[in-house]
């Protein structure tokens, strides 16, 4: 189970803006540790945002995304008090889902 995300979602003028901060090392698989051996690749490969039972954003990540990935996007609609759900999966099969209530 991954570490919890920080998510903010706010609706303004009919658009819901979502800001996500994930907690993940995002190891490229190209770095070496103190002994000179390669640190295996470990990174989020997919992020999905859902609102009202539909996917509002689907992202695929590679190793070039920074450690503790940040993501901002917005979608049409969304009501204050309703929830947005964010889920990610990494290349080791670990995953995490968090929900946030949309603020006005």
């Amino acid at each position, binding site marked *: 189970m991954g570490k919890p995300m920080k998510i903010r979602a706010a609706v303004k003028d009919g658009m819901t803006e979502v800001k996500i901060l994930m907690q993940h090392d995002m190891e*490229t698989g190209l770095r070496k540790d103190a002994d000179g051996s390669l640190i295996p690749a470990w990174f989020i*490969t997919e992020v*999905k945002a859902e609102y009202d039972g539909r996917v509002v954003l689907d992202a*695929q990540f590679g*190793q070039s995304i*920074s450690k503790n*990935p940040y993501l901002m*996007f917005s*979608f049409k609609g969304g009501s204050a008090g309703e929830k947005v759900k964010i889920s990610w999966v990494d290349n080791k099969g670990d995953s995490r889902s968090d929900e946030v209530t949309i603020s006005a």
Partner: protein
Amino acid sequence: MSKEIDLGRRKALSTGGIGLLALFGGASLLRPGEALAEWNQPAFTSKAVDEALSSLGATNPEESSVYIRLTVPEIAENGAVVPVGISTSLPKVEQIAIMVDKNPNVLAAVFTIPEGTAPEVTTRVKMGKTAHVVALVKSDGKYYRTSKEVKVTAGGCGG
């Protein structure tokens, strides 16, 4: 000698394990009725922009700095965290992708934009050295790109 053999075996076991885990982990999260694209391995292991473009089915995208706004810093003091924003005035946007042309794996992210979601994303990427950030947008079935150079004073892939 025996240590070497052991290490080799351990390596083989661990990489095999990761592959299997990734396979099962990916599959188990896909619930029926959700049309999620599978992680595009050929594109994400591409070593050059042209290779990544063809893996995404985006050969010869039209150059368009007018319709695509790529927001990156001119100079990045820390290559480990470079903010990248992409927005576009193009209609019917289905996909947005970010690449860093000098990174070992050039493709950083591919966003699928459903109807109703704004064609605008912001994230942060790692840059090993001074390079061009490439934004790719698929609009109404056609691909467009633009790029900007970011000067990196301290690389983000050290270790």
